[in-house]
């Protein structure tokens, strides 16, 4: 509950901050550029995550992800994301390896855009996400629940499992060079369910991250290219 409140507060603050900044500009220009906003584009973007490959140099998480988006109208963009990831969970006496692919489908809605380049802006959105992966439990703790003491360990062979979850999205995109954009998006995610091995709740999921409760926060920080 504390996490949800904190997240809500921070995200609301971020959006307010962004609105506050952009509205100052819009309020001075909107009356003279109204006709520009009505122009319809169907921009296509492809983007590659650079944050996770960099971070993978310092942790167990290895993988890449990319996305493609299609502008439906002035504000709405349909988005497809895909990637693969290897990861390890080695905490509280568990040692779990996962390796698999994930895909996300959803849309972004721009809450504010630049007048001169409407591809720049801040957006919110949503995704449904699915991951199919192998899970190897190298070690799990066996606990005497009466005394709350760990009495041994066990292991389980590789198993094919899957997970699905939903994500909200808050992100921003800015053109850095011609047709190349820097893009950053937070994806607060909520695990829904999936196929488990022996009823064991997932401890780490490709594309979702380590499971430390019902919510998580994947991050996309990368470069996008406007094809059209």
């Amino acid at each position, binding site marked *: 509950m504390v996490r949800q409140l904190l997240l809500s507060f*921070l995200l609301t603050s971020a959006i307010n901050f962004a609105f506050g900044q952009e509205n100052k500009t819009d309020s001075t220009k909107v009356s003279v550029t109204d006709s520009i906003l009505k122009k319809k584009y169907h921009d296509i973007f492809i983007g590659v995550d650079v944050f996770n490959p960099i971070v993978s140099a310092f942790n167990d998480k290895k993988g890449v992800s990319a996305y493609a988006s299609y502008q439906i109208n002035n504000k709405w963009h349909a988005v497809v994301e895909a990637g693969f990831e290897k990861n390890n969970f080695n905490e509280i006496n*568990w040692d779990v390896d996962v390796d698999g692919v994930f895909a996300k489908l959803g849309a972004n809605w721009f809450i504010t855009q630049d007048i001169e380049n409407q591809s720049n802006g801040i957006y919110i959105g949503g995704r449904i996400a699915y991951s199919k992966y192998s899970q190897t439990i190298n070690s799990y703790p066996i*606990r005497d629940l*009466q005394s709350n003491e760990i009495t041994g360990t066990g292991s389980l062979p590789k198993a094919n499992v899957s997970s699905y979850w939903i994500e909200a999205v808050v992100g921003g995109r800015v053109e*850095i060079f011609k047709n190349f954009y820097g893009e950053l998006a937070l994806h607060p995610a909520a695990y829904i369910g999936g196929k488990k091995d022996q009823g064991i709740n997932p401890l780490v999921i490709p594309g979702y991250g380590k499971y*430390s409760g019902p919510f998580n*926060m994947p991050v996309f920080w990368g470069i996008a290219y406007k094809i059209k």
Partner: protein
Amino acid sequence: MKNIQRFLAYSIFASIISLAFYSCEDDDICTDEGDVPRMVADMYYDGTNVPLEDSIYYWAYVYNDSITKGIREATGTSKDTVLIEKNSALGKTSFGITLRQNSKKEIYYTIAQGPDIDVKDSITGKVIRTIPAKRDRLILKYDTLGNGYTSKACGFGLTFKGVDVKLVTKTGNGAGNWIKKIETVNTEIKDGSTTIIKLFADERN
């Protein structure tokens, strides 16, 4: 350059939000009481499937030398055993008693139908005698220990396999002081909610 600055500003802002989010870790301490294995008994009126509601007082023991860890408490009932739980279930049709792994693979239960009643002197108010509640003894034996997934924080919890419970107050399978018959309905104790025995008795007078 201006756009790069804006992008960096967004990035820093988002990073702060992410760090704040990740700093809130879930509690990873195993505290799930509901998954602790217990010998759960459901009570019925003798000869029926009608649940019997009563107040039950119970004690659980293991052999003194059969455990090396955990809480020990002097009991006074036998120098050979140690009490591992003393508790009651008031106005219930079901109760669950603890068990613990031990080298002898046996747990001994004393189960009383209702509380002991103190008879007091009408003038002085002192207890002049105590009428003990009817008691019966059960012995639970298990063959092996297993384990089953409990939770992320707890891992896999120990389970007790090949469970057999006998009424031993009187010889053989005859009726005890208040328990008329028991029936083992599950031979593996995995949690604190699955019924292990059905206990048939008469209503308390």
